[in-house]
């Protein structure tokens, strides 16, 4: 057992390590109380395993209070009204212990008890995973002096709950409420959102309005007017809007909170146009089944009115590609294929040496090598 002198900064603190620890001389400077580095600062692997056994036994030795130098028994009790405690470790030693490395461990106090923790009937809780814990608690709760009121309150609460709506109904209610939203497409979610928003506000401001916080960040003058709106908290609409926004974020529209009413209306209009076109065309099967995919607008080469929209290279369309295997003029063009397909083939290594692909649209005539093309950008 190696005795290490722990010092507290006074002049005596010269002898940090004794002679009976010769092996550790190399790392004298770094290894001290509280240091976690037990190794040696050298690259010799021979030295590695020597000390491990010895260390393990002495690691958790508790520091005796006598080992600490520089403690004082008592000192002046009061210095101008301020109570002064003597500089020693007596209190700390009572409440815990130091180990040989200088780490302090607090004694686990057996006396601190938590009434609530004691009174939980874990069996009951496991039996009723869906029902509220409180019911089990209140029923099983032993009444103690001072706890009577709490137990009574809980019982009253539960009676009220039982009266107003039965627990089973509540559970069932929760599920169907979420289901309709789950089956909404992005389009429908956006539509529902529009109903809750006012023109000219973003989703975030709408939430703030419904939450009743009013014009917090606005100027002083507005604060006075805004105070009247503060009490107007519409929880139902707020919940609904929050749920819708959350669903949209979950389905990939990350900027939804910054979208304004107008922007949403615009995107809706655009999408409904595309959808009507897509439906009439029997658009790609994948998109019909995938409710989050952007509808392809294949009409831009056929239908005249839609051409205007498509000339502006909207970025939400599904991008189709055609490719050929070499750079000759009259090589056969394969396509059109969607970006996902192209990306899949690239990943499989089907186009090992790279093929020459280009977008299917009026503008581009140049073929790009698939090796440098990132189809992921277009998906």
């Amino acid at each position, binding site marked *: 057992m190696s005795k290490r002198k722990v010092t507290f900064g006074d002049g005596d603190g010269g002898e940090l390590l004794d002679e009976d620890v010769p092996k550790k001389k190399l790392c004298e400077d770094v290894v001290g109380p509280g240091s976690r580095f037990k190794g040696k600062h050298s690259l010799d692997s021979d030295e590695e395993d020597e000390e491990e056994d010895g260390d393990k036994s002495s690691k958790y030795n508790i520091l005796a209070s006598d080992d600490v130098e520089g403690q004082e028994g008592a000192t002046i009790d009061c210095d101008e009204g301020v109570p002064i405690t003597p500089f020693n470790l007596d209190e700390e030693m009572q409440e815990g212990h130091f180990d040989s490395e200088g780490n302090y461990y607090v004694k686990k106090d057996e006396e601190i008890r938590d009434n609530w923790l004691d009174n939980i009937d874990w069996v009951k809780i496991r039996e009723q995973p869906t029902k509220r814990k409180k019911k089990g608690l209140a029923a099983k709760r032993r009444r103690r002096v001072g706890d009577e009121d709490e137990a009574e309150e809980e019982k009253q609460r539960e009676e009220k709950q039982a009266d107003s709506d039965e627990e089973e109904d509540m559970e069932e209610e929760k599920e169907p409420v979420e289901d309709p939203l789950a089956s909404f497409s992005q389009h429908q979610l956006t539509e529902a959102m529009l109903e809750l928003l006012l023109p000219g506000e973003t989703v975030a401001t709408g939430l703030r309005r419904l939450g009743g916080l009013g014009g917090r960040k606005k100027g002083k003058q507005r604060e006075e007017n805004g105070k009247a709106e503060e009490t107007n908290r519409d929880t139902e609409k707020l919940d609904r809007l929050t749920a819708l926004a959350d669903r949209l974020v979950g389905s990939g529209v990350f900027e939804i909170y910054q979208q304004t009413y107008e922007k949403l209306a615009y995107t809706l209009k655009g999408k409904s146009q595309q959808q009507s076109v897509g439906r009439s065309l029997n658009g790609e099967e994948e998109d019909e089944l995938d409710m989050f995919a952007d509808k392809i607008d294949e009409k831009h080469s056929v239908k005249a009115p839609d051409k205007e929209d498509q000339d502006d*290279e*909207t970025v939400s369309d599904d991008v189709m590609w055609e490719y050929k295997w070499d750079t000759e003029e009259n090589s056969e063009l394969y396509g059109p294929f969607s970006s996902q397909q192209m990306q899949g083939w690239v990943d499989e290594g089907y186009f090992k040496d790279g093929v020459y692909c280009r977008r299917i649209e009026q503008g581009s*005539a140049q073929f790009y090598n698939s090796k440098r093309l*990132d189809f992921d*950008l277009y998906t």
Partner: protein
Amino acid sequence: MSYMLPHLHNGWQVDQAILSEEDRALVIRFGHDWDPTCMKMDEVLYSIAEKVKNFAVIYLVDITEVPDFNKIYELYDPCTVMFFFRNKHIMIDLGTGNNNKINWTMEDKQEMIDIVETIYRGARKGRGLVVFPKDYSTKYSY
């Protein structure tokens, strides 16, 4: 065609332009209106401005009028085009070794459109660096 594209006349305007565009990419040409390289570049930029207006906006900055960015963006070429999206500078790998900017004249309009579109798509996906399919490492054809 420099007079047809909007100019930014001081550092604050440039900052505001970069900060305020939420949905579109920003293409900023740093240079001088009277420089031949810039003139050619401006011609190309103007010709594509309408086509890319849905996802990009183009500004011109005179680096004598606005010297604030010369050092940080190393604007030592006669004409430099840089791309920004949502207050972030977007890098593009064109094979030239300098991913921060385009500092030569891009003659082909369609290529320019493709570059801007690649920047926009990549930036929308959160990428800070996009790889452009065409390699310009041999752009100096002797």
